[in-house]
């Protein structure tokens, strides 16, 4: 098993490198010279040249990439053109905020998905199943930024129950797990949970109804096992797959929360990306994309390893 883990980590390195390359190339996808975004249009040519040199933009692309990567590996993700300070500290705070949102939304979706999916799977083919499955399809079809607006209209504008924007009183940008802050978390987390809830409902439903139809369940029934013990068996067999879907969803939420963060003015990585895009702050765009993508790669690996560890059916070659 140790060797397997080691080998999987080694396999991850080329992927991580390629992901870095894609993030690096983002800046060169943009039309025109990246330097235009950094200096005002009427800058004298010699200053433009100086800035170009300072950012290493006068070097060939492979050299620029090596230079950038060298800094990234040392934890230097560049300097924000807009804020004129290192990207990393801001990015860490923002990632923390996004993580709070993604993990809460993900767990909420997981919980809803398991309950709905479990019930639908047990009652397969009945009207209960059809209603729950319909709800699941609705969950994956909802434009979540719109759902966010609808929730704000109902709970903030209409009922005055929950705040519509921000991540805590006073907009400090730092998160704390107290009631004052959690009030701000409820609506965005609920909004973010509908897609994973829908996907997990479908996964769990499929698994449960498959497992329930297998011979050993009939055998267990025949042996007079109580139904909650059978549920336990079903649960254990479904767990590895559900876990895998869940892990993937969590990583997707981290990277895909930009729309929800925009609706709720949540100070996370999505907001950072948004600012970076519209202010043409390329170092921030590169760094944020890189961190989120690497998180996705690492989480994929972790889920894979956990799945292999708990599911004896997967061979550990």
């Amino acid at each position, binding site marked *: 098993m140790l060797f397997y883990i080691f080998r999987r980590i080694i396999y991850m390195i080329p992927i991580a490198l390629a992901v870095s390359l894609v993030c690096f190339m983002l800046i060169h996808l943009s039309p025109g010279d990246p330097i235009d975004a950094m200096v005002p249009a009427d800058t004298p040519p010699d200053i433009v040249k100086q800035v170009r040199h300072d950012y290493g933009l006068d070097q060939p692309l492979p050299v620029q990439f090596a230079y950038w990567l060298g800094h990234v590996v040392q934890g230097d993700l560049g300097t924000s053109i807009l804020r004129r300070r290192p990207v990393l500290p801001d990015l860490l705070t923002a990632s923390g905020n996004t993580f709070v949102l993604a993990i809460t939304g993900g767990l909420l979706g997981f919980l809803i998905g398991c309950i709905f999916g479990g019930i639908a799977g047990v009652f397969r083919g009945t009207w209960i199943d059809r209603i729950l499955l319909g709800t699941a399809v609705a969950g994956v*079809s909802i*434009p979540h930024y*719109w759902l966010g607006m609808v929730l704000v*209209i109902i709970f903030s504008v209409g009922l005055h129950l929950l705040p519509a924007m921000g991540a805590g009183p006073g907009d400090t940008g730092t998160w704390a797990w107290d009631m004052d802050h959690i009030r701000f978390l409820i609506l965005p987390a609920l909004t973010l949970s509908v897609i994973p809830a829908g996907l997990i409902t479908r996964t769990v439903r499929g698994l449960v109804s498959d497992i329930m139809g297998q011979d050993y369940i009939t055998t267990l029934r025949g042996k007079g096992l109580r139904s909650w013990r059978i549920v336990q068996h079903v649960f254990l067999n479904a767990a590895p797959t559900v876990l*895998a879907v869940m892990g993937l969803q969590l990583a*997707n939420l981290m990277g895909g929360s*930009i729309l929800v963060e*925009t609706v709720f003015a949540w100070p996370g990585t999505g907001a950072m990306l948004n600012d970076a*895009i519209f202010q043409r702050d390329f170092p921030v765009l590169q760094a944020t994309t890189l961190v989120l993508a690497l998180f*996705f790669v690492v989480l994929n690996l972790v889920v894979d390893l956990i799945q292999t560890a708990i599911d004896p059916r997967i061979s550990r070659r």
Partner: protein
Amino acid sequence: MSMITQQTAGAIPVAARPQESRDSYWRIVGRRLARDKTTLFCAAVLVIILALILLAPWIAPYDPTQGRITQRLKPIGFAGHPLGTDELGRDMLSRLIYGGRFSWLIGITPVVLAFAIGGIIGIIAGFMGGKVNMAIMRVTDVFYAFPSVLLAVAVSGAIGAGILNVILSLTFVFIPPIIRISESVTTGVRNLEYIEAARATGAGSRSIIFVHILPNVLGPIFVYATGLVGVSMIVASGLSFLGLGVKPPDPEWGLMLSTLRTAIYTQPLIATLPGVCIFLTSICFNFVSDGLRTAMDVRA
């Protein structure tokens, strides 16, 4: 990456079978679809929406870009404006109908393009096998290592706003999953005995691909693509919502949703209308995709 493979593998109804029974297979699929009321209903809704947006110039009561500032944010049912007016006094009904044109364009075109490009690349990877397959699939893995919304936002953000750029960035995002499916089906079919038999009778690569492989690959990626349209509509409108897609004053559902956010305190119902349109389109495509998948699954 095995996890993602598992995820997509679940979506593939393997209809790998020799082609002589093709007619009867499609007849079975047709019969199953005819019995599936949900799918038929959703397909009908999609046809109606498509008709409305195609006939927009004849149906829409007003010019979608012209508003009267004195008529701002009039409620639903206001004289002459059955769905009210927006924040610049433009007729909501006309804007929703015209907006569908842009939303459908930027939502569906990327899937169609990715369907064609990804399908071809996947067939090449699956059919050639060996090093070519390795190279193509490893590159695909890299793009799989990005959350899809993040990749779409990052690429759109880098190349800038605009209809063409949204279509480009989304096509880019959707190609990898389609390559995966088309590759895995092709690889699966390639090693079946009837292909070997065809080769033994002297069939060349071209006829094997067109006669034996293509019909098997098209079904699964078509089903996947219809489901992808549901996602694509949401993401494409989402990009416009962020300001990365269609530019004002053109109407587009995501963009309208974004500009109407200021109206949630005064006209909440109107502010949510564009979202209802996105939701309706997306859910109908998802139900149709599910219906097709069930109908085309030979094991069911």
